[in-house]
């Protein structure tokens, strides 16, 4: 009890001391990133003090939604563009004119800033394949350079990735492949890669963790995880496949911010050349969106504005991606995340059958294998359906308008997909086993 009273007294004292102009930032970024920015900002603007509150992206979005009535947050600062889209659609972000010079409109094919001006990209990140060198040496694996490489049987059980419904950046990688290779081929690729996975992690940081500790050999990660892990001494490397999504990490001012002037100053500072150079700090390792900042970059630092960088990058269709955002997440979870065991068994069976008949000319076996492959790749819906509002709106944030007639409830639709998928995986495994025994 005395401790409680003491605690109350202490917190009252600290509260009264902290009456300077405080800019409150809710962020999912680690201390390694926020620390240097806080120091640099408070030096450049001594009249402001930066209060950083860390929450993972989901918790941060929920926090802003729940505290809307009496908002205490000035700035939301995070990677995932989708989180900003959600906040924007719920009128939680403020449209503020920000003075920033020298920042181009787009990076690769992805627009840097929100076209409506509600949030701003401040750093770019690409997706890549991160691998553990000790793991690769011990298992004598070739180094995967492209997404397709990870489909090979030699990588069975060596790959890790997070689910697109858990990580906005993973979502963009999934969508990039779907747009680059087409709906059907794109999904087929993801299924063959996923069949090689030993885990689909729940947090996006779970992937670099798995690769760093050597429980997985290859991880599909956002680049700074790989770069920062390497900078902290882990035996890992990162490669950028030629088809990669370059995605900006964003900053936005919260609607009805308690300290609007300070918030504007901070956003402008982050986008200024001085702020952009903070990104080159070895513990941060994110790519500045201001091309001039690369002048001072260390040797070998990737430059997304360079012509050689990711030559195969596609034109990313933001509207298409947005229209089926939740549908793609749900489809990935139903077909891959929740049925990973079934998928892995089917994929392994096909890989074994293919190995058994690699040099044979047994036509029956090859036909069975082809049939099994088709079953694994089969999709419950077509691309047209994925873009049809009647389907996509099943997964939209609910209770907005009843204009579109949708095909069913999410649980109902997912159950259909699930039985379709599970059945196909089971039959594929049986066919492949049959082929292997021939």
């Amino acid at each position: 009890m005395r401790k409680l009273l003491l605690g109350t007294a202490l917190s009252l004292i600290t509260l009264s001391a902290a009456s300077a102009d405080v800019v409150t930032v809710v962020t999912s970024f680690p201390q390694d990133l926020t620390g240097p920015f806080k120091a640099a900002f408070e030096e450049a603007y001594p009249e402001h003090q930066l209060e950083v509150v860390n929450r993972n992206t989901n918790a941060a979005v929920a926090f802003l939604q729940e505290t809307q009535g009496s908002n205490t947050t000035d700035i939301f600062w995070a990677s995932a563009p989708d989180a900003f889209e959600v906040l924007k659609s719920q009128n939680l972000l403020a449209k503020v004119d920000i003075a920033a010079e020298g920042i181009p409109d787009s990076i690769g094919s992805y627009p840097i800033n929100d076209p409506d001006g509600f949030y701003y990209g401040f750093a770019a990140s690409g997706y890549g394949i991160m691998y553990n060198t000790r793991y690769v040496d011990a298992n004598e694996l070739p180094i995967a350079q492209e997404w397709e490489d990870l489909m090979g049987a030699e990588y069975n059980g060596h790959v890790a990735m997070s689910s697109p419904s858990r990580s906005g950046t993973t979502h963009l990688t999934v969508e990039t492949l779907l747009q680059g290779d087409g709906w059907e081929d794109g999904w087929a690729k993801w299924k063959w890669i996923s069949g090689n996975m030993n885990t689909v992690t729940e947090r996006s940081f779970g992937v670099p963790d798995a690769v760093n500790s050597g429980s997985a050999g290859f991880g599909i990660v956002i680049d700074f995880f790989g770069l920062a892990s390497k900078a902290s001494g882990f035996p890992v490397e990162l490669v950028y496949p030629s088809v990669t999504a370059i995605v900006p990490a964003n900053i936005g001012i919260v609607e009805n911010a308690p300290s609007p002037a300070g918030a504007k100053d901070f956003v402008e500072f982050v986008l200024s050349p001085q702020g952009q150079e903070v990104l080159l700090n070895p513990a941060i390792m994110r790519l500045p969106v201001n091309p001039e900042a690369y002048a001072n970059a260390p040797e070998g630092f990737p430059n997304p504005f360079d012509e050689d960088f990711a030559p195969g990058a596609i034109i990313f269709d933001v509207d298409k991606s947005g229209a089926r955002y939740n549908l793609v997440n749900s489809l990935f979870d139903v077909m891959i995340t929740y049925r990973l065991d079934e998928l892995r068994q089917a994929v392994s069976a096909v890989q074994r059958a293919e190995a058994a008949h690699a040099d044979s000319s047994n036509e029956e076996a090859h036909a069975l294998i082809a049939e099994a492959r088709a079953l694994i790749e089969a999709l419950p819906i077509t691309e047209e359906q994925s873009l049809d509002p009647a389907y996509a709106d099943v997964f939209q944030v609910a209770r907005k308008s009843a204009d579109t007639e949708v095909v069913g409830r999410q649980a109902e639709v997912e159950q259909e997909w699930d039985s379709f998928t599970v059945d196909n995986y089971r039959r594929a495994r049986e066919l492949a086993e049959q082929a292997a025994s021939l």
Partner: protein
Amino acid sequence: MSATNSASSRALRFTLFPRLSGAAVVGILIAILLMAFLVLPVAQVIYVAFLDARSGTLTLQNFQDFFNTTLFQQSFINSFYVSAMSVVVATIIALPLAYITTRFNFAGTALIQSLGFIPLIMPPFVGAVAMSLLFGRNGTVNLLLNQYFGFRIPFMEGLNGVILVQSIHYFPFILINLSAALRNIDRSMEEAAQNLGASGLRLFRRIVFPLAMPGYLAGAALVFIKVFDDLGTPLLLNVNTMLAPQAYLRITGVGINDPMGYVISFILVAFSVFSLWASFLFMRGKDYATTQKGGGGLSKRQLSRREKILAYLVIFLILALVLSPHFGLVLLAFGTIWSFSPLPDGFTLQHFQTVFTESTQYIYNTLLYAGSAAVLDVLIGSAIAYIVIRTGLPGRKWLDYMATAALAVPGVVLGIGYLRMFHGIQLPFGMGPMASWWGIIIIALMIRRLPYALRSCMAALQQLSLALEEAAENLGASKSRTIRRIVVPLMAGGILAGFVTSFATAAVELSATIMLVSRASEAPLAYGIYLYMQSPAGRGAGAALGILAVVIVALGTYLSHRIIERERDRTVIPASGQ
């Protein structure tokens, strides 16, 4: 705070409304507290389960969908299987430890009991990393096995992995409650059985274990419900086809509003209450109370030299297994880089230095939050236990059900519920919104850990014969004096067990806390670990902070055991002098 409130208002109302007994007033106050900080906030979030996602009207359609979905059916079966098996494995681990340390004269009992308790304190994230570095596919054990024998053991894969990790993690619930119960058994029962010729296993099976049943069941029920509702371990092992992770994944997706997550949460709560009710049914009609107290429980036997060696060996093996995650944590905290190798590349004190220069406020905050929460928990827990077992108040069982339902409420649901209910409420003295006040963290921890304290207190009271209280009252003691001088001292072991469990697990809680922390200076340890674990460079420092949490809690546990032992020594001597 609410405890002092309730005490003072009890005195006040006692004169104002003489028709309400003191117990009734306390019961009503506790009910109000649970309504305000558990039922209403959770209901605010979970009512989505009963809404049509599009029209917003009330419906049971979502529940029908739940039962029609194959994935959820399988998840339910998996959750049930894992929970039941975890109780079995946890019993196998806990039984020898509890029995040997309470039944025989054994050096180091307090130490063994304390060590056996540590697995409950698994700091978030770093605990998982340590486990996978030791037991994972390319962890220490499997790398060595593979190098020398050419095979691997899939400790951490699939449902079996979940069962193993959950049993190691939660068996202390059984250990601590079973030990407390064994200590409370009346020695005369055992002697009577021996006089009638029972000994050895028969004595244990027919007399000792049945008499310790309330404690064992309290622990087993906790393990079962906790495993059923736990999402940390399945998520760390990436097992998604269980109910709790399904609920979590569906609730926390950005921008998705899938009512199924809330349906599952509702079903988790309902099933937990049901399991509890089932354990009540099992106990009904049986009387576990014994009158003789303070006689030191079972007589402690001397072990022969060979038996002693055997006992130590068993204990050593069990402790080695259950403490291995913490051994991994130590390596992680002192190691430099640890990647795909049996041991870290080198050792350093750097991480502790980082923690001590940057993060000492977390330690103070944790002691304050977890300590206050645990004190409140045992106060409320013993009050509820007393009301449920000793009074005839209508609806008293519902206090127990309500408090225990907190086990099944995912932390994130409670956190969102608090934000929804309390953020609009401004506190006086410029302390800002109630939801960002640090006190709300204490309340959240108190609610989340109340079931642990409650089960221990219930078990302790169940073993206490009513005759002792009647005797005191016959001798002229008032009701409150009887509670203070007779009931509470005799329940002390159980209350302490409850305090330790609540404190230890509150010290590493994260899921509700992360929603409620409003500034780093007011954050607890678990949040600090989370902060470090967001970047690759912070892994060692996060582990170091985890070690500090474990050391703090272990010291607290050890001191508690010393207190129990000293109390016992004090009371045993006059008893044996009779």
